[in-house]
């Protein structure tokens, strides 16, 4: 007999996802993996750091993601003279009521693009990072909750450029993933050159996806089955990163949790209810490349480093 499918609701949500991924692909050409990884990061309730040279489409990516998910969007351009109040908001004395009134800053949005975050001073940077960590901010003794869902994409210029304050290792750890966009391949670039203006396309973009659906997915992700065998694999990876002479320091427990959450989100994104070793391998480079410092300078902070030094060294138990 045919018993009713148990995971109908999950199924319909993930099918909605594949349609928005298609839409995003039409605007950002040849970057499907990056789009999927960003979505996985959002479903896993993490924040995203994009590091790349200017002009490869970081802002467009953020814009597209916000739009297709139907989230309220704010862009904060970080500069060297920025103060925390520019991000969080400020209380101004209102003469008519005789009281201080709070004017919320750009952080009170569901989707924040923090552009060129390494151009600001550490003081302004840490205001953003704290908000990311707590999902709430405290100003003048009053605690205010940030909206739900809350997602930050920070972009960073490569740190060897002039006039930057690179984020310290400890603060890099706050981002669940770090992605590289990289240059488009030949065919994608040609299509970009021939095609319409991306900004125009963005304006026309409509979506059926809602923030509620995203929240639902966020709630569902932790229920994806992580079998003992997968936990064994994850622990082997963490252990290897800690004892291998190829790395200066190993992965933290927080990194381990991030890997697990991301792989759960990744498998949900692919319509599965259980994590496979392939899921871990898919998310691993983006999740750990900014947390590991290889002893060999040659591999410095590149995803290839992770795949060569970690994934290929650890057998799947």
């Amino acid at each position, binding site marked *: *007999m*045919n*018993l*009713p499918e148990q995971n109908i609701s999950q199924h319909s949500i993930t099918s909605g996802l594949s349609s928005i991924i298609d839409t995003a692909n039409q605007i950002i050409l040849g970057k499907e993996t990056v789009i999927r990884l960003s979505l996985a990061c959002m479903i896993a309730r993490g924040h995203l750091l994009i590091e790349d040279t200017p002009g490869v489409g970081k802002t467009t990516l953020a814009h597209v993601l916000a739009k297709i998910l139907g989230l309220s969007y704010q862009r904060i351009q970080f500069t060297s003279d920025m103060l925390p109040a520019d991000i969080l908001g400020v209380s101004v004395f209102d003469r008519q009521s005789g009281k201080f009134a709070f004017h919320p800053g750009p952080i009170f949005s569901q989707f924040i693009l923090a552009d060129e975050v390494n151009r600001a001073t550490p003081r302004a940077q840490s205001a953003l990072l704290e908000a990311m960590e707590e999902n709430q901010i405290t100003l003048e003794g009053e605690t205010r909750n940030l909206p739900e869902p809350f997602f930050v994409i920070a972009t960073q210029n490569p740190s060897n450029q002039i006039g930057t304050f690179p984020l310290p290792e400890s603060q890099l750890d706050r981002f669940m993933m770090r992605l590289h966009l990289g240059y488009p391949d030949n065919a994608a670039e040609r299509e970009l050159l021939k095609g319409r203006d991306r900004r125009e396309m963005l304006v026309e973009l409509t979506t059926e996806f809602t923030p509620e659906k995203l929240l639902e997915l966020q709630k569902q992700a932790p229920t994806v*089955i992580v*079998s*003992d*065998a*997968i936990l064994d694999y994850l622990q082997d990876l963490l252990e290897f990163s800690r004892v291998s002479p190829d790395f200066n320091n190993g992965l933290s427990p927080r990194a381990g949790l991030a890997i697990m959450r991301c792989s759960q989100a990744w498998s949900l994104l692919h319509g599965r*209810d*259980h*994590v*496979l*070793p*392939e899921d871990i*391998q898919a998310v691993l480079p983006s999740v750990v490349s900014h947390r590991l410092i290889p002893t060999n300078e040659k591999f410095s902070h590149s995803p290839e480093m992770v795949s060569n030094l970690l*994934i*290929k*060294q*650890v*057998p*799947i*138990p």
Partner: protein
Amino acid sequence: MALNSLTLRNHKISPELLWLSIGVGMCVLPHTLHIPPWSSLIFFGLLLFRLLLNEKTVRKYFVTMLFFRLAIGGIIFTGVFVTYGTMVGRDAGVTLLVLLGGMKLLEIKAERDYFISVYIGFLLILTNFFYLQTLPVSLYMGVAVLVLIASLVSFNDRGHAFNLKGRLKAATALYIYALPLMLIMFLLFPRVSGPLWGLPKDAQSGISGIDDEMIPGSISELILSDAVAFRVEFNGPVPDKSKLYWRGPVLWYTDGFKWVPDIPKQPDLTINYASQALSYTVTLEPTDKNWLFSLDIPNEAAQGSKLTHDLQLRTRRSVINRTRYELTSFVDYEMHSNNPEELENALQLPGRYHPRTIALANSWRNEGLSDRAIVQRALNHFNQEPFFYTLTPPIFINDNIDEFMFESRQGFCEHYAAAFTILMRAAGIPTRVVTGYQGGTINPVGEYLIVYQRDAHAWTEIWLGEDGGWVRIDPTSAVSPSRVTEGIQSALPDSLINVPPGIFNNGFSRGLWENMNNTFDAINNRWNQWVLGYDRNRQRFFFSQLGFGRLGRDELMIGLIIMLLISLGIISYSMFRQTEIKSDKAKSWYEKFKRRLSNIGISTYEHEGPIDLAERASKQRKDLADSINEICQAYVDVRYKGKLETLGVLEQKIKSFKPKKRSSQF
């Protein structure tokens, strides 16, 4: 037949439904013996009808079926009410449950309905014990439980990965896990005296046994019964058969047809015991009467009973459960009554009845004989005149005693006892009728005595004045002495008693048959004593034997909880261990699969997951793509999806995966 699914002319019956039907059918089968035939027909009709329907039809015609079900429901309720005149009580209730269980099968369409049907099955198993609690019935019900568990296994096996063996194996494993819990609950759960809940009144009907009223034919009716009346274990040698008189109701008054007992009074007796004390334990089958049986004569009342003036053991409540009691008796004795009123009562005659018998007694009295001589005369009369001992005496029309004494002269023990009493009373000798059992069969296997209903007997006690006291006289022995010395079997033709089936009816195999019977009864007796008869006393005894001393109810409860927790812990640990082992097994099978792949030239990497491997390998060998994909998916199911029950599928697929290297053109 694999019993995985059954196919009848394009109609496939799913394994879940098949197993459920077999299970519920097994639960109902024993009930067909006592529910009305029409209800058995309806139940099995519904069962068959459901099996012939397919899922789609059930869904499509759900509403139409609703009217059909309403109609059947109407028939059922009316039928039960017409048959029993009520909806409650054991028989009506069970019939209703069976029929509604059949109806439930009709409306199965979701998972929930399956589970409800299984639980109805479990309930039906319980109700079987309202009728019979013997070992064979319990074993049968154990098998029925196994089948029901197997059907539960089937529901949870959506992918139909199990074959018959696997299904039964899984069910048996669950069964074995539950056994220690059952044993702990059985041993430790505090017992209440008496049944936990009252069975409905009609549950006691149909119990046969000695009554406290005697009419002609009431005892001979019992002779045809092979049922056990009680079992006796002696603490020492068993006395001679001719001394085994099991005393039951004592009857004093007659209206010319029926004999009834006296009102129980305090004993007022002087007894001199003339033999050694015999102590023994009786396990009495339920009688629904309020007296116990004792070896003639008991010296004191058993626990829970009172001794009356005529040495009956009366209980306050009816014996509705199997009851064990200990007694001490003396087979040789001298018993004097100190109550003259009692002797008066023992001379009562029914007004105008039995004139010829009374005249006969008077004629003896007028000859000037002594009491003892008159007794001897009467016994001689039975012995020398052509009297016959028979189970099937002719029907008496007017005066049963006179017709028996002077016309037919054929009768059973109750006729002899009654006639003898009338004779004695007419001659002025106080006499009373004693009913009970005489003899018994020793079971050499268990070394105890079985007294069957067919050992039922009636005899008399006469008052021989101050020098004799109450003396037992068995008039039947004057006609058929072997009845008393050898037992009822020898006194009656073979054809009436415990006839073994055809092939056992010769010398050697008859012995075999008896041996089998004895062994069976010995097992049954153990079952009765230790399982069904495990009451508060037995429980106390059991734990004091283990060295726990006297455990109170609270201590038992605490012990129960602790033991349950410990065993649940052990069980869950071992189930958990099994999960690990199974997962590891899957891994070693997968390694074997990888070796086979490298043997045909497909390299494998330790860091490559199963899905990636499948994709790469199927590109290399398109001809093997299907089986490779299937194996990798099965491996994922067991190892990463937690579907451990499909380990067998993985094993099977890898076992049959024997790829060949491509020929050398590449």
